[in-house]
């Protein structure tokens, strides 16, 4: 649970940004060693230190050049006790400090996003997510095999996937220990296991959807949405736990990376689409006859439509 939320605004910016911290000490400044980094040239390298107190916070100016102003007062303050809702001005940046219980909708929102992750990261849930993931991957291996496989072998094959989740969590724990001085490995492990747990049903869902709709486009779109959404959730959760970057930057990074991946895949599809190959690629998904969603055509109308595949344009017929 976050312990403090900052509302950050700047005289030259449009809009406000929110950041939540769950530590008892928060350093603020322009330098990268700070917990809250402000890109404001009028802010000193090490500007403020905020320490949690019993019913509020103590703010302390770390001998900055431009000083600290509280609640629009003209006087420079060296050290003061502040409460939720107070406004701090350093350089040209305005910070409002809120307690998570403060009745402002935006702070509620920030605090709420953490609830699911918080619940996910309890030891019981981390273990059950990891075990669930192991079982799901074991089942997936069995599902693709023509013969029955011993449960031990199946589990062994899915341990590899758990290992991937552990490595991913390890990377973010390292990032966390650098950026926030807190690794929170189990938190990260819960996130990566949950992500890997979700992508299997998502992938299967897409291919079933594509089959019953007889459309590779629908399959592709559904796959992009579900997988893109999962990657977005994974990255934003990892960033939320490991770093103190603002909500805006977090959203930007976690949207940008999946979009960049999709763009690269789309681009490479179009780049290699017209390359010569001797293989007849047609939509070959087959799923059990569970629902009859498609109207079957008659042979006559199939043959009638069939003439479309004999039409090739000049570009396709070019000899070189």
């Amino acid at each position: 649970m976050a312990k403090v939320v900052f509302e950050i605004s700047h005289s030259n910016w449009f809009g406000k940004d929110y950041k939540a911290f769950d530590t008892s000490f928060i350093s603020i400044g322009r330098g990268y060693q700070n917990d809250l980094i402000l890109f404001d040239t009028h802010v000193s390298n090490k500007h403020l230190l905020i320490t949690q107190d019993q019913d509020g916070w103590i703010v302390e100016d770390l001998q900055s050049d431009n000083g600290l102003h509280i609640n629009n007062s003209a006087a420079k303050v060296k050290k003061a006790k502040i409460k939720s809702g107070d406004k701090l001005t350093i350089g040209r940046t305005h910070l409002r400090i809120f307690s998570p219980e403060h009745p402002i909708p935006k702070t509620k929102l920030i605090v709420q996003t953490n609830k699911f992750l918080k619940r996910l990261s309890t030891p019981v849930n981390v273990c059950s997510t990891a075990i669930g993931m192991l079982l799901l991957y074991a089942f997936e291996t069995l599902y693709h095999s023509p013969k029955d496989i011993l449960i031990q072998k199946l589990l062994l094959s899915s341990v590899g996937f758990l290992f991937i989740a552990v490595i991913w969590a390890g990377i973010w724990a390292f990032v966390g220990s650098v950026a926030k001085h807190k690794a929170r490995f189990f938190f990260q492990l819960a996130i990566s296991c949950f992500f890997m747990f979700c992508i299997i049903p998502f992938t299967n869902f897409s291919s079933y959807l594509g089959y019953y709709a007889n459309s590779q486009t629908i399959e592709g779109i559904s796959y992009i949405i579900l997988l893109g959404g999962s990657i977005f959730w994974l990255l934003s959760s990892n960033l939320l736990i490991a770093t103190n970057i603002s909500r805006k930057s977090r959203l930007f990074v976690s949207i940008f990376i999946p979009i960049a991946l999709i763009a690269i895949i789309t681009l490479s599809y179009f780049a290699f689409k017209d390359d010569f190959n001797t293989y007849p690629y047609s939509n070959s998904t087959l799923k059990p006859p569970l629902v009859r969603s498609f109207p079957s055509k008659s042979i006559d109308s199939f043959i009638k439509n069939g003439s479309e595949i004999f039409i090739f344009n000049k570009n396709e017929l070019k000899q070189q």
Partner: protein
Amino acid sequence: MKQIRTNFKFAFKISLANFIILVIFANNSFSNDITDEAKDLYIEHRNSVYQIQIVNNATGKKSTIGSGFQISKDGHIVTNFHVVSSAIHSPEDYRVEFIRSDDTIGSAQILDIDVVHDIAIIKSDPNESSFFHLGNSDIEKGTKIFSMGNPHDLGMTIVEGTYNGLMKESLYKKILFSGSLNPGMSGGPAFNRKGEIIGINVSTAGNQISFLVPVEFLSELFKVAKTKSVTKSLSWDAVIERQLSKNQNDYFNKILSSNWNNLSIGNVEVPGELTSAFKCWGNTPEVQYTLFKSADIFCSNEDVLYLSSNLWTGEMLFRYKWMYSTGLSTFRFYNLYENQFKEKYDYPNAKKKSDVTNFKCQTEFVNINGMDWKIGLCSRNYKKYRSLYDINLSMSSVGEKMEGLMVELVALGVNKTKALDFIYKFIGNIKWQK
């Protein structure tokens, strides 16, 4: 170069003469005692048989060798189309030369071709060499015949063998010659004791099984060719396309009008040997699982038309795979079924972008005689012969939870109308037995 043969995983090695003599290295050569008869014939005809070589203009080196023989005093020389094909497709890069028995070299121009029967007539200047007279191939089985040619560039040889009649089950009439033909003898003459041409050497399946083009096709071509003169500007592509189109049209008319032998696989009645040119083979895969079973049938017409070293056509084949679950859940069964369905025939007949386009496909669910099928239909166009397409029909039954049949049909070098007519008849003949 590779053997031309079907590339299915379960294509059976038992296969007839699908390959061209030039690209095959025969097994141990067979040594005949040279009788005096053969010696006399050799002496009589050696001046009318030539080595044909295709020379690369840039390097001046030969790229292909074969044999040929003279059939008129005007300098008409006969060889195989596949011997001179590179000079036909890229006349700016290759020229045709022939070497006489006294090692002198002459140059020749391509006069006419019959791509379906693999014959080419080339023309050199009129000369004093002796020449062969054309006979006919309607002779008694067992008659002794002789073949001449230049195997592996080792020098002119004469081979004695037996005439074993026309192959009944081939799409294109061929004489079965029991004698050893080897690479380099393509285009050489096969003649009787009187020195009359019976056929032209064309291909081998090794072990004394060799094939000749019957002389009648040559006589027909020569009738037209002798009135022609060499025109350099002629586009051979148009000639080849015309001949291929006519051939596939006749062939498909024959298939469409004939009564097909139906086979049954699993619960399904399917088309089997469409004409006598087709052969079907059954197979149960070596690896069997306890949780599901499968069985295959593979049919093909085993006839190919050689167009160039990168392109052949004319072949048709289809395969069936029946699968049923004996212990898998329907989800697992369909997963395996899907994996099998994803394996498609990888067309080995054209490997170059300059010859064919990519495949264009569409997929539909179709109800055939009461059963739902998922059908993918693909085609690709020949770039030089635009009325012709390679076809892939790949279908899978999707109405049963624990069993299914997959069908893949491959037809090379077909026009659009015939292809669709044929597919219509083919899928209409697939009947799921309740």
